[in-house]
């Protein structure tokens, strides 16, 4: 699989705290990578480092195959558009002027496409209104519009739905999906709103205390969160034969455990397994929501 | 208002900018007195404390706005004013509490200068030639001037939303007020006639011929207006104090108080109606 961004044991220490602690992650090309973590987990710090705003204390990353330790990384940066924490817009300029300014910074030969970008983010009719008079949601959209200047291949969005109304959230979600599908833009979104991410992301990176706790695809996550009965047996091979005979969907996890995706009749299963010389030890009902999965991943351990 | 003041005092006293301003004023005054003492000792003529006591007011003129910038600036920038209004505080109370705290900072900065002046001046230069009572009156004038500078700084900081712009504006205003006051005071102090030259013939000095001083402003409307500005604005008052030329201290205090009230009234009126972000 081709990765547009790979970090290798990134660490960032400030005077009084450690924001990142050996963070390793992989953002596949063409994906919408949802970067999930609680406040203070290190999401924004990572984004700042990848965008070149800060240098890591140790570790490195590659962006489109170029290492962060090489000067040629700037060529990769030109393929990136980002909104880091708060929208970076000149408040005393109109939306159009802000985009023109970004075009100049990128050295684009003409101002073609500005109107289209503004319409895309829903700011097509702001006219001469200065950014300082925009609502937070409008400034957020303008920040995304600025990030879209120059047709980036990678879009990095730090909590892009902050300050947006429900309709705005839907519009931004649809915009991200459209950019990903139609323009093949890889998107890295950091968020702590799981529900929103679950409608968007194709891949997930769960971060806690400055480290990636788990990376997985959306399919893997759905599988993890699916309602099932987790059974513990003495012989999963015998279990597999028995469940195949029953026509029941299942997933073997280890030599002794498996998830069964159907309502389990314990008596029937025990009886069937005993014919194969296998004992049923425990049966546990699992109904994982994305939230409970996340909490079990990052927060459950601390409560034990 | 009490809650606002209480919260504000706690915040003010933890501001590094306030203590740095106090320390800078203290140092400035101490260095000025010691340096003057050392220079004067060489010729055997020790200057009076009166002539250099109020040098610290130069520090007050610029450091009170700095303290206001660092104290009130974050109120807008960090949105604290929004929080106060949202919890039911009245706009007038928010303004007045910030004004009181700026004035407190001004008093502390001025007091630092006075303490340094007395601590170093009295042992090295002796007591005030004009007497302790007159000195006390002059020191009161210094405090009133400091508080009027605080009022001007507060109105600028409260009415300009952008904390960077307001910080620049408040210091530029201080520079302008001082420069204008200095210029006007110098023009008003210019004598009517000036000695253009001294002629020496065969070792004898010929009586110099006085000529009209072109910097002199003749009595009239212009002079009266400038005298009012010189007496009423902190710039001119400061220069008068430093130069020991305060003929009517009570009037200076009255003008400072009046400026404080007028500026505050305007500030409150505008702030009450201002659209906040």
């Amino acid at each position, binding site marked *: 699989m081709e990765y547009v961004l790979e970090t290798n044991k990134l660490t960032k220490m400030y005077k009084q705290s450690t924001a990142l602690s050996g963070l390793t992650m992989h953002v596949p090309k063409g994906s919408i990578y949802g970067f999930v973590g609680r406040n203070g987990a290190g999401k924004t710090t990572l984004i700042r480092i990848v965008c*070149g705003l800060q*240098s890591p204390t140790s570790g490195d990353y590659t962006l489109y195959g170029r290492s962060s330790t090489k000067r040629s990384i700037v060529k990769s940066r*030109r393929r990136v558009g980002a909104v880091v924490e708060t929208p970076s817009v*000149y*408040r005393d300029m109109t939306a159009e002027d802000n985009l023109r300014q970004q075009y100049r*910074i990128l050295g684009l030969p003409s101002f073609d496409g500005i109107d289209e970008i503004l319409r895309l983010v829903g700011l097509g009719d702001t006219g001469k209104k200065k950014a300082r008079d925009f609502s937070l949601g409008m400034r957020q959209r303008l920040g995304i519009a600025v990030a879209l200047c120059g047709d980036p291949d990678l879009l990095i969005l730090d909590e892009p739905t902050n300050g947006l109304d429900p309709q705005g959230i839907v519009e931004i979600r649809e915009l991200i999906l459209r950019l990903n599908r139609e323009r093949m833009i890889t998107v890295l979104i950091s968020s702590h709103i799981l529900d929103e991410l679950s409608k968007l992301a194709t891949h997930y990176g769960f971060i806690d205390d400055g480290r990636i706790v788990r990376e997985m695809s959306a399919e893997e996550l759905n599988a993890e969160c699916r309602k099932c009965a987790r059974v513990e047996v003495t012989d999963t091979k015998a279990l597999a034969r028995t469940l195949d005979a029953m026509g029941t969907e299942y997933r073997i996890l280890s030599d002794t455990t498996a998830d069964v995706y159907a309502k389990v009749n314990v008596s029937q299963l025990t009886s069937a397994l005993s014919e194969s010389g296998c004992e049923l030890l425990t049966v546990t009902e699992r109904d994982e929501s994305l939230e409970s999965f996340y909490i079990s991943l990052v927060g459950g351990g601390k409560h034990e | 208002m009490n809650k606002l003041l209480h919260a504000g005092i706690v915040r003010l006293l933890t501001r590094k900018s306030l203590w740095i301003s106090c320390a800078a004023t203290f140092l400035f005054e101490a260095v000025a007195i010691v340096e003057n003492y050392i220079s004067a000792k060489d010729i055997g003529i020790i200057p009076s404390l009166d002539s250099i006591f109020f040098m610290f007011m130069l520090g007050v003129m610029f450091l009170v706005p700095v303290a206001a910038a660092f104290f009130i600036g974050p109120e807008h920038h960090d949105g604290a004013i929004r929080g106060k209004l949202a919890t039911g505080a009245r706009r007038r109370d928010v303004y007045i509490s910030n004004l009181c705290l700026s004035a407190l900072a001004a008093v502390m900065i001025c007091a630092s200068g006075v303490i340094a002046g007395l601590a170093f001046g009295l042992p090295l230069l002796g007591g005030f030639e004009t007497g302790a009572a007159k000195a006390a009156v002059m020191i009161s004038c210094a405090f009133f001037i400091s508080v009027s500078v605080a009022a001007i700084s507060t109105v600028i900081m409260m009415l300009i939303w952008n904390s960077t712009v307001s910080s*620049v504006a408040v210091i530029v205003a201080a520079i302008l007020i001082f420069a204008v006051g200095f210029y006007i005071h110098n023009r008003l102090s210019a004598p009517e006639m000036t000695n253009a030259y001294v002629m020496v013939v065969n070792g004898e000095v010929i009586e110099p011929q006085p000529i009209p001083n072109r910097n002199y402003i003749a009595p009239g409307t212009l002079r009266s207006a400038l005298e009012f500005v010189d007496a009423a604005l902190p710039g001119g008052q400061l220069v008068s104090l430093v130069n020991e030329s305060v003929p009517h201290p009570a009037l200076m205090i009255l003008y400072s108080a009046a400026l404080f009230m007028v500026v505050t009234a305007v500030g409150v009126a505008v702030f009450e109606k201002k659209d906040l972000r």
Partner: protein
Amino acid sequence: MSKLLRAGFARLGKTRIFWLLTSFSAAFALFMCVVCYKDMKLSGETVDVGQLMLNYSTVIGIVTAVFASLYLGAEYSDGTVRNKITAGHKRFDIYVSNLTVTTAVGLYAYVVFITVAAAVGIPLLGRIIMPLPRLFALLGCIFASSAAYSGIFTFITMTVSGRTVAAVASLLCALALIMAALTCINVLGQDKEILTGSVTDSESGKVEWVYAPNPRYPSESERILYRTLVDINPAGQMYQLAGREEPNLTLLPLCALSEFAAFTVLGAFIFKRKDLR
């Protein structure tokens, strides 16, 4: 870098501070012309418009500090410096492009002043009396000192975290440079001897002036120190070039451009390593 410069200059026209600075420069030139005209009418002396053109040099430091604080400060407070870095521009290029814009604006402000002073001053006051080569040489040196100012204030604004702190630091630095220059010039301007009294011969009426060594007259080593401080201080350079002192037209621009280079190298070095939010 050319893209950054193009973007930087394009933004100028859209910022209020640029037009404010233009208006101030023009207004200041007008003010100086009017003041000189009134003086000319009163004294009957001719005013050299060339000398008038040099007068903005004493104020340009504060103007540059204000501009740098607000224009470059907006890049941080609005977060737009992040756009440049994210787009792949090198930090050195960002620093130098900002420095270039600030330096160009400082020169532009002075050109506006000269233009208005010439346009209004020549018809009102008469011609330029000083030789044009000398005027151009002095203006060239002033531009070099203006660049030194730009170097210093760009350094402060780009390296100091906290927009209010950077703005206050720039303005206080500008003030401190002016006050330091005036202090040094005052020391260097002290007479070797001071008049302490006179003796009149009662019979002949001859007056003999009594002089004594001035204790404030600097020693040789002190003179060298103060002279050096004046020469390396951009404000000191400006005061010398504005005619208050006889300037060294080789040394002053050399000092100015060296400071410009030194602050640029140091500033770019610090900015490269700075963690941005």
